[in-house]
């Protein structure tokens, strides 16, 4: 069984990460009734003996040892202390080890250059050490999950610095990045600069990027609340929605109602995506999909590794008398633009590849039936007409009998990136706010133009493929035997 390490950088990264750990504990506690420390739990948590002041790590061994105390395999980085301190004061403080935290006082001021160049240089040793310590405690480390936002200073700057570091020091370990992109009406004025400068690092150093947009998450949360208005107030759900089943809820987690924060429901959605993506690697199933298989199947060309995700069902219905025709509905919903985690419409763009990660009581015949049904309404590129990757995990998520996570490599992402580039160019033409960046040591004006070039080339690659949507390129004839 392989382990993964989560590196959360910046305010956004740490808040999503915090929800992720709460939900992961919830999932494992509902499944692991015997309290034994087995391989599944060890993929994200360490079992430690806290009687020693330097908690000793207890390995899985034959999987029959009891859980003494769990510590998350995480590294928390933030250049201002507010968020991390709140985590360490809150109910999840026992899950994190103070040695896994790297904090500073003053923050990065929404400035990518300060995050990347200044704090990067300052904390390089410490970050490297902390990650090495976490990696050494893993039996077989398979991938790093880096969570950060693109619009701010620490998340985008220091986050992309950490990504560089991971690429240099651990070239064989996969790097998955969950990046929160700024929406059109973002409150940070320099967010286009920060995003584009960070994108270049993501294009060069990440294996897979899962872009997430706040606006999309807000819309999903609204949709869930519409289904049951009482759900938002956490009263008894005599409505349609089964309590604790919505993907935006933290019910059953350690953080209780009164401690919930406003962004929590949105962050829960993003955290659920990470949980569902790794479920097949942690639990048993008849068609296992490991994380390296996701990169292998969904990334046809090295730079085109931006994957659109969508999660269904959003909640499950509590009335047991409604017959389960939900399964096919779940598959159809997954491809509607309301369920995507970025504001994009994949149905009108070209699919390069698509992965369906199914959890729960679903059989392979159901999946095949739905693939055949949906195949006609989706446009796949001509050399990958059957570009589906399926994964089947027997263990259902908490609160729902089955769920589906679709991860697709779709050319619709270039619309999002084009919007980003336009906002960047608008500011850059006037050289507005540039002096804040160039003030920082080692930051050159060329960094801006090079990042713009990198973003443009990614957009162009996607656009060229999308042009083939109606006229596929003529294929070379097959080898002839004389």
């Amino acid at each position, binding site marked *: *069984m*392989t382990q993964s390490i989560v590196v959360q950088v910046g305010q956004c990264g740490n808040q999503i990460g915090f929800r992720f750990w709460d939900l992961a504990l919830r999932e494992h506690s509902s499944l692991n009734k015997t309290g034994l420390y087995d*391989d599944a739990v060890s993929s994200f948590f360490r079992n430690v003996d806290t009687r020693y002041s330097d908690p000793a790590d207890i390995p899985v061994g034959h999987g029959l040892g009891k859980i003494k105390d769990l510590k998350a395999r995480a590294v928390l980085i933030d250049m201002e202390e507010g968020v991390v301190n709140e985590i360490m004061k809150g109910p999840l403080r026992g899950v994190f080890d103070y040695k896994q935290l790297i904090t500073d006082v003053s923050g990065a001021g929404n400035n990518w250059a300060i995050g990347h160049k200044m704090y990067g240089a300052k904390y390089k040793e410490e970050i490297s050490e902390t990650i090495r310590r976490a990696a050494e405690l893993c*039996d*077989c480390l*398979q991938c790093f999950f880096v969570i950060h936002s693109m619009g701010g200073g620490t998340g985008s700057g220091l986050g992309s610095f950490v990504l560089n570091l991971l690429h240099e020091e651990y070239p064989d370990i996969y790097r998955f990045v969950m990046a929160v992109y700024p929406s059109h009406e973002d409150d940070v004025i320099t967010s286009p600069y920060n995003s584009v400068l960070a994108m270049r690092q993501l294009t060069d150093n990440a294996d897979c990027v899962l872009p997430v947009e706040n606006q999309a998450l807000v819309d999903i949360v609204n949709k869930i609340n519409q289904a049951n208005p009482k759900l938002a107030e956490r009263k008894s759900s005599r409505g349609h929605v089964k309590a604790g089943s919505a993907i935006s809820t933290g019910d059953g987690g350690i953080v209780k109602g009164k401690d919930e924060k406003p962004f929590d429901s949105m962050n829960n959605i993003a955290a659920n995506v990470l949980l569902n993506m790794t479920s097949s690697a942690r639990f*048993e199933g*008849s*068609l*296992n999909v*490991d994380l*390296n*298989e996701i*990169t*292998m*199947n*969904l*990334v*046809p*060309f*090295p730079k085109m590794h931006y994957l659109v995700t969508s999660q269904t069902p959003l909640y499950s219905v509590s009335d047991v008398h409604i017959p389960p025709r939900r399964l096919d509905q779940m598959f159809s919903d997954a491809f509607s633009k309301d369920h995507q985690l970025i504001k994009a419409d994949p149905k009108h763009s070209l699919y390069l*590849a698509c992965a369906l990660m199914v959890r729960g009581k679903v*059989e*392979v*015949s*159901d999946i*095949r039936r739905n*693939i*055949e049904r949906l*195949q006609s309404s989706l446009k796949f590129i*001509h*050399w*990958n*007409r*059957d*570009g*589906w*990757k*399926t994964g089947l995990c027997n263990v259902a998520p908490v609160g729902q009998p089955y769920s589906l996570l679709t991860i697709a490599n779709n050319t619709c992402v270039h619309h999002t990136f084009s919007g980003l580039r336009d906002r960047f160019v608008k500011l850059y033409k006037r050289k507005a706010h540039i002096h804040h960046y160039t003030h920082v040591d080692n930051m050159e004006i060329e960094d801006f133009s090079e990042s713009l070039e990198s973003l443009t080339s990614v957009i162009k690659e996607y656009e060229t493929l999308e042009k083939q949507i109606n006229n596929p*390129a003529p*294929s*070379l004839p*097959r*080898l*002839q*035997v004389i």
Partner: protein
Amino acid sequence: MSVVTLQMGQCGNQVGGQFFNMIARDTFDQSLAKCNVPRQTNQQFIDDVCERFFSQEEGSLKARAVMVDMEPKVIAMTTTEAKRSGLFQYNNKQQFCQKCGSGNNWAHGFLVHGSKCSQQVMDLIQKEAEKCDRLEGFFTLMSLAGGTGSGLGAYITQCVRDEFPHSFIMNQVTWPFYTGEVIVQNYNAVLTLSHLYQSSDAILIVENDQEQKICSQLLNIKKISFSDINEVIGHKLASFLQPAKSNNLTSNHLGEMLEHLVPHPEYKLLTMKTIPFMSENNIQYSAYQWPGLVKHLTQMLIANASMEEGIDWGVKLSSTGLAYNKSMANSLFLRGLDVNTVDVSSFKDGRLYPSWLPSEACLASWTNQRTFNKYEKSASLVSNSQTPLISLNHVIDKAWSMFTSRAYVHQYIKHGLAEEDFLDSFACLEQVIKNYKDL
């Protein structure tokens, strides 16, 4: 004469589990009354099966199998299921697994895992082979779509060929569903088949699509799971690998069967057709007769049908009209009541075979009076024919179109494969297709 089974990757291990389960159930779990043979013959049969597939160790019956996978979950599940059945077990020491999988990457399975693990896997195989009194050969179970089964499976087959040059090697490959289980399945399939063609003696093709059709149309299973499909595959495999005798009383050892089925090294692709298939409830109410079964099976061969429903009866054995399926060799396995009375002359028709082969020699038939798996009469046909051509053509088409756009190629090059290797594999398989087409 014993056969050592190598289960490679998730698919190989899952199919292997069902295969041994089927053999164990058919051999040990049948009441003598239903078997149609006297007690002594039955005991002889049981002894034969035990010698072929199992070894008696530490008081329990252990399968002669080596289980290999790059991640531990599947091997654990298969072993537990075997123990639960109570009929046989897997030897815990004959298992090899690593922590990280191959990521559906053939190059990763073949080059990276191959060189790292081959020594240990060959040690396990050597140990299993030494337990046999007389080793007949190796039966490898693997899939074509994934990374471990296909890549590591191809590498280990090569190693086994080098270590045991006189043993027979048959590879059972599972062809994935047409519409994706894995996106790069076509690349993996092309690379695997071309390598297996050099080192294996026979490649037995089983297609997921067809087995699923059998489950849904003949067995009436509503929600088909992979274990249902694997049970059908296990049934088909057991139906010809269980002991049987030919007219001159030679046993159907692996070598005998392969010598007949693969007369020429350029023609190694085998397919299986088995009838009847019925759901449990229907078995008691049906009475099949041999002439009917033989007629259906012949037409299935000619018209290229994979099951006894939906056969195209319009295809006839004539040079005008619809093209029919030509074969190199056929082996017929008949089990159950009155097998000695069966007329198999329809399979000896000269028009089924190319003109440069003597038609009487093209059919080998093996019979056993003992009933197989609750079916009163059952017939199985293993043929070396043009059946796999359609799927093979399809896969090469898709792989080639992906290759011309160079999609995903960087993932294979990362692990040490080169574009020439791809081109070599394509060339090899185009040659295979041409050979079969010209039959």
